[in-house]
């Protein structure tokens, strides 16, 4: 059986599934339940400086986006960092770590952007025996207005500076958690690396308004008739998170920097995908908040079954395997030609492919009197839309034309050689192929 134990920055955990810093990791009670359920590690809910803790709103904190059958696809929150006393948290961390030495406990921290503040809290955290820290440079609401969280994460110079302080006053691994509310994720990642970070984790939540109450004309969640943007997470954000992860993984400047993948991880497959894009482990929040801690059992069983099927003995066998295949558009092979193929046996004659292609694409599907749908090769540009809108999985597929075949659309022979935009004659700045 595959070994799914993880070693991230030297921090060992029985599996790569950690709970992200959020309500599930807010206190001893939850974290003990999480470990009993089988989670490999937790990133404790973000701690703030000593003194009176922050206060949360006392109305609703969450907004949601649903799919069919009220399946929660996206969650939005306006919660702040921990609203419990620093020392209470530290005592609890210490106790739990002592009882669960084989699990990873990372302490998330967010204190003002002043060296003194970090210098004060880091020894206290060190004393808990936790395995490392995560710097919360991501929270997009409430804390950023106080010059913390995303306000720091949006300024690479600050990231570098704070990371350096942490490496100076703390002996164990330092993970920098990045905000996605930025135009180029490579910049903060590079700054973290420059500051000496052992790893980055991403993404934190995305600025969002999930819905507007049209009766009261107010964004939701609404607090006494007013709303504010919150942080978006859950399955809906996974594509954005994975793209950002891949950018960091394949950027020469940050290539090799360990990454903890976060954002919409819900099943083993999501985790495997993040890891294929270069993440050493993953963190989960919304899925646990939606279904409870038990979901980790599916993740553990699913990942090891898939690894067995693929012959991966350990996580390192596949971590980062998809990175070399993630490239820029300009390097995609323009001689790779495919055509949509509709399996008449599987077709249920709904006609969605027809409507999609006829109305919004390339008029490449014909419809007969008896509702037989067929691809017109001479028109099909192989956009894949019909595949995506077909309700029957596997009914429409893309067939690759073999070299030597004629593309009915262009009338040209399919070439065996790879050729991309950089060498294409239509490209004004094309460089002649050697």
């Amino acid at each position, binding site marked *: 059986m595959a070994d799914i134990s993880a070693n991230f920055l030297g921090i060992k955990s029985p599996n790569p599934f950690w709970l992200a810093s959020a309500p599930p990791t807010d206190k001893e009670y939850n974290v003990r339940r999480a470990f009993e359920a089988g989670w490999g590690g937790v990133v404790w809910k973000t701690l703030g400086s000593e003194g009176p803790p922050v206060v949360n709103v006392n109305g609703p904190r969450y907004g949601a986006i649903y799919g*069919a*059958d*009220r399946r929660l696809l996206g969650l939005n929150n306006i919660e702040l960092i921990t609203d419990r006393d620093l020392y209470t948290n530290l005592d609890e961390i210490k106790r739990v770590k002592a009882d669960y030495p084989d699990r990873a406990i990372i302490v998330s921290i967010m204190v003002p952007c002043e060296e003194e503040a970090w210098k004060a809290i880091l020894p206290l955290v060190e004393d808990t025996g936790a395995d490392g820290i995560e710097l919360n440079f991501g929270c997009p609401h409430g804390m950023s207005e106080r010059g913390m969280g995303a306000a720091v994460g949006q300024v690479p110079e600050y990231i570098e500076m704070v990371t350096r302080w942490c490496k100076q006053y703390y002996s164990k691994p330092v993970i920098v958690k990045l905000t996605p509310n930025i135009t180029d994720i490579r910049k903060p990642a590079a700054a973290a690396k420059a500051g000496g970070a052992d790893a980055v984790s991403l993404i934190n939540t995305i600025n969002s308004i999930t819905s507007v109450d049209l009766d009261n004309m107010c964004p939701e969640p609404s607090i006494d008739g007013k709303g504010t943007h919150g942080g978006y997470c859950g399955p809906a954000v996974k594509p954005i998170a994975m793209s950002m992860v891949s950018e960091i993984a394949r950027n020469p400047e940050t290539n090799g920097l360990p990454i903890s993948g976060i954002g919409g991880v819900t099943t083993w497959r999501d985790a495997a995908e993040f890891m294929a894009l270069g993440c050493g482990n993953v963190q989960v929040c919304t899925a646990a908040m939606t279904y409870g801690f038990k979901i980790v059992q599916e993740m553990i069983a699913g990942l090891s079954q898939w690894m067995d099927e693929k012959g991966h003995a350990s996580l390192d066998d596949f971590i980062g395997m998809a990175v070399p295949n993630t490239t820029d558009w300009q390097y995609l092979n323009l001689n790779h030609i495919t055509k949509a193929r509709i399996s008449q046996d599987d077709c*249920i*004659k*709904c*006609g*969605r492919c*027809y*409507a999609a292609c006829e109305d919004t694409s390339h008029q490449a599907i014909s*419809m007969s009197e008896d*509702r037989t749908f067929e691809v017109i090769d001479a028109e099909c540009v192989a956009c894949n839309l019909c595949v995506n809108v077909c*309700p*029957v999985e596997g009914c429409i597929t893309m067939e690759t034309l073999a070299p030597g075949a004629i593309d009915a659309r262009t009338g040209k022979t399919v070439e065996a050689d790879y050729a991309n935009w950089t060498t294409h004659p239509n490209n004004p700045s094309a460089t002649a192929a050697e």
Partner: protein
Amino acid sequence: MTDPMTPGIAAARLSKEALAENFADLHAPYAPHEAAVAADRCYFCHDAPCITACPTSIDIPLFIRQIQAGQPEGAARTILDQNILGGMCARVCPTETLCEEACVREAAEGKPVEIGRLQRHATDVLMAKGDHPYTRAADTGKRVAVVGAGPAGLACAHRLAMKGHAVTLYEARSKPGGLNEFGIAAYKSVDDFAAREAEWVMGIGGITLAQGMLGDDLTLDGLTAEFDAVFLGVGLGGVNALRAEGEERAGVEDAVSFIADLRQAGDLASLPIGRNVVVIGGGMTAVDAAVQAKLLGAQNVTIAYRRAREDMSASRYEQDLAASKGVRLMFNVMPKAVHGNGAAVEIELEYTASGPDGLRGTGETIRLPADQVFKAIGQTLTTDAGLAVEGGKITVDASGKSSMDRVWAGGDCASGGDDLTVTAVAEGRDAAEDIHRVLSA
């Protein structure tokens, strides 16, 4: 309560509670979340086959999408635009042979989108608001007589009223609704829905309901003299004869009258029902009579149909419904004689075989105990009012025009289309459109 084993025909074979349970809604209405889940299953097909399969051509994917988008009232408008009796049709249409049979998910997984129940959800929400959603066009000064206030007549009257014509709706019975009120199985139209819907349809205004019977106090000549146009939606009031020995014995009854009595009964426990009931026929009426006899407490109920199962006009779904209620289905048997001493006691059935010259008896017979025998072997036209008739029905063209000038007909009494509520609605509506076209020319 009578002992359920009481021989012969007796009332109150079941307790009031059991009767109430037996005659409750066949399909409970959706709760809002159930409706949302059911609506989500619709694929919004291009040129959707379900629309074609609906005799009134309701834009089904559109109304389901409106439910998805949180506006069941808007969905109801989409339905009612095509079919003003969309509420009743949602309850009584044999969807398994209409829209739901055509649903691509039926082909794909044997589980169609539940179009009928979704339609009921939408129309229930709208009708619960009370207001009538349509308004009348300016008065045209034209007057139209609609004879028969069944589905065909109501649909025709409503569409005519909407166009601004003044409609007089003549009905022979004391209540409007036609077979919606007197024929449809009780568990398909609970809580007096037929009467409430008829009232609601007429809520558009411009429709005067009048007592009157064509062939009795009304004549077609009189109507054509008085009105600009006439529509006949008189249904099929007569019943075919059994042509079996002993047919006149007490206990041998029309299934349709039995159902009409049941539908109008204030107290189901007051209805007498046999201990052993045999229903002759193979259509929806046979199934409804048999099932309701069983639900009233008959101990043994048998449907005796003269041809094979595949030939039954009641759908497989209806057959299974009957079987699930404990009705026995017998095929390839025809009634030969009803035996008894005054009242029916036994029925003698002869096995049939179909040969080159049609169906014939094989000579072999079987006898079943039968205190009550219901004839459900088809209804007949009671008045043709002197119009051309074909196959026992008033001849009409595609737009519902009869052989006589300014006279239209639709529903069960007219040629073409199946004898279904939804077909009657479509024909009434289309005739109204044609009448309007002619009157505005």
